[in-house]
């Protein structure tokens, strides 16, 4: 690099350095989307109120927590789990059964968590041995959902209102819902784990370059088991929070009618993908996932306030996923080796 080139690149500033020839299209679309979003946000009455912003983040919390778990799997290069909502369904049934039989919050939660961890470990072993993550989790999804429905006879399980899980479902701390706080705590812990601990760095290594990981003694088998367990445990926690809020549970709570936004699993995958985590692994962060969850929730909320039906909202989430895939794939088209 000559001295002249060096000086121009120094003087041209931060933004110009970020906008290279390759990602110009991506930046243009990003700018258009943000301008459109800001315009509609200002034009919609009651959108930018403190109450509504709180609602947006609260809505983002459950999907966001599951997305944080899935980020680990995606970063470690194991694509995504198609069994997210089914793991949540089984956990919610176990939790509600425990609550309705008066085992108390702690034991019910432990039961739900351990079932989820078992499910995650089982899938992780199969994936780590070389099974395709999509196919394995598709099969596991059928089993988990089937077991959840069969166990609960496909009925709604209620538990009476004064119960000791209320602090998690509907409780507030300093005017902020507990579930929002736990979302933030989850995000911070996960980000710290990924950045500062050796386990977090190993996740990136295995995801970015599996051969290099293997050569340095970090096989995919333990990594897949650990990340699948983390993802499933996050699913279980989200399910418990949801159940504590509803004081009831049914196996199909997380199926297609969830929040009228289509399939919960796909929604979780969307939160991971929209903010640009690389699906091939090794690139991305929990911060991106959290922002993706908040962005999707904000858009959804905006469209509700503008009076759109569920079709348009599902369509918009689908468009978001496809557009982000297309943009990121186009930007990275030449820099990435054949997957």
């Amino acid at each position, binding site marked *: 690099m000559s001295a002249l080139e060096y000086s121009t690149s120094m003087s041209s500033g931060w933004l110009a350095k970020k906008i290279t020839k390759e990602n110009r299209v991506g930046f243009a679309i990003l700018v258009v989307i943000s301008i459109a979003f800001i315009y509609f946000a200002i034009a919609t009455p009651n959108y930018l109120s403190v109450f509504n912003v709180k609602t947006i983040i609260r809505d983002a919390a459950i999907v966001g927590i599951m997305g944080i778990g899935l980020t680990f799997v995606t970063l470690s290069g194991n694509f995504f789990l198609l069994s997210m909502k089914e793991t949540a369904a089984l956990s919610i049934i176990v939790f509600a059964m425990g609550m309705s039989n008066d085992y108390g919050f702690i034991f019910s939660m432990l039961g739900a968590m351990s079932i989820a961890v078992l499910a995650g470990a089982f899938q992780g072993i199969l994936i780590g041995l070389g*099974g395709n993550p999509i196919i394995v989790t598709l099969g596991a999804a059928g089993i988990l959902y089937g077991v959840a429905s069969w166990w609960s006879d496909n009925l709604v399980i209620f538990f009476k209102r004064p119960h000791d899980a209320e602090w998690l479902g509907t409780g507030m701390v300093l005017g902020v819902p507990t579930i929002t706080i736990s979302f933030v705590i989850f995000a911070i812990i996960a980000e710290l784990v990924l950045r500062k601990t050796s386990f977090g760095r190993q996740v990136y290594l295995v995801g970015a370059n599996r051969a290099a990981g293997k050569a340095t003694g970090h096989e995919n088998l333990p990594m897949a088991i650990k990340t699948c367990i983390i993802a499933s445990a996050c699913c279980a926690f989200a399910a418990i929070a949801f159940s504590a809020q509803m004081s009831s549970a049914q196996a199909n709570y997380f199926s297609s009618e969830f929040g009228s936004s*289509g399939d919960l699993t796909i929604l979780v995958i969307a939160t991971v993908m929209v903010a640009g985590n690389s699906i091939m692994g090794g690139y991305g962060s929990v911060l991106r996932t959290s922002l993706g969850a908040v962005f999707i929730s904000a858009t959804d909320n905006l469209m509700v306030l503008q009076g759109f039906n569920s*079709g348009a909202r599902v369509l918009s989430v689908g468009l978001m996923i496809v557009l982000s895939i297309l943009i990121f794939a186009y930007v990275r088209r030449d820099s990435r080796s054949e*997957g």
Partner: protein
Amino acid sequence: MCDVTQGQRGKTMNLIKQKLTELDPDLLFAVILSLCVFSFFAFSNPLFFTLNAGFSIMERFAVLGLVGLALTLCIIAGEIDLSIGSNAALSAVIVVRLTDSMGAFPAIGIGVLCATLIGLAQGYLIAYLKVRAIVLTVGTLMLLRGVALFAADEKTVMLTDFRMTDFIQEKIWIFFSPASLLVILLFIIVGVFIKYTKYGREIYAIGGARKEAIASGVNLKRPMMIVFALSGFCAGMGGAIIGLRSGTAQPLALQYLLLAATVAAFIGGVNILGGKGSVIGAAVGVLTVNFLNTGLVYNVTPSYVVQIYLGVLLLIVIVFQTLSILYDKGKQRRLLLHDTALTKQKMMDAYKSVLK
């Protein structure tokens, strides 16, 4: 006299042995599994082994066969199309909405054309952007649901005159209906296409050895577009048949198709690494799933328990396949080590002889 018969018996035994070794072991496994499932239900439930049950199995074959065929083709090309269920639901909505005003056949044409074009676009994008199909199709899975919801005004769409589409399930020759005959014809055409034509062989090539195929001059776009267009066509056709048969279409339905079709494809002997599998295998796999499905329905099993069976079946097949891949890898490694040891020995010998 005795000698002659024994000789003949030996000859026939040899012939059978030869035929058996020529057979694909995966296909053999699929056939045996499907016979086991069939005979289990045939013996346990007297209603199952009747002509009517045969007809209902063939009716299920019409839909699941199409989707299973679509998924088999994708997996042969080394990719997975997750958007099959959404594509089928969209096509069902379009067909049911248009049948009232246009008649059944133009409506089917438009619905299937839409699905095919969607598949074609997906294939083009996958090849052009070099993304994995899983990544793109998980997005279109949601996008097409949204489009289907939009097209149906978020309602369940219904025909006004249900008699209009009765022709699709008229009985022909005891077992068949126009729908299942059409699907069987499609299986034959696609089977011939992927086995005996150049474009069909390219699909196997990009699945089994993509880099080598590209290096030897296969344009990735063409087979990818063909595969996904066929997949879209099959999904659309399946959706159209479901929609017309029941006279209704729900934009959020048909999610179960993906699991059932995946099970069918994997029983039929496809390999997740691509380049392996056949249309006959797909047919046998679909029949197995249909025997299981129909049998469980005849035994009054709720649909979520059927899901457990399908999931367990899929995981068993996956475990076997993964173990066999691991075994092959180990064998190759041992062979390689053996070869290097031999070469080393030879070189040492040469070295010693030079020293002498």
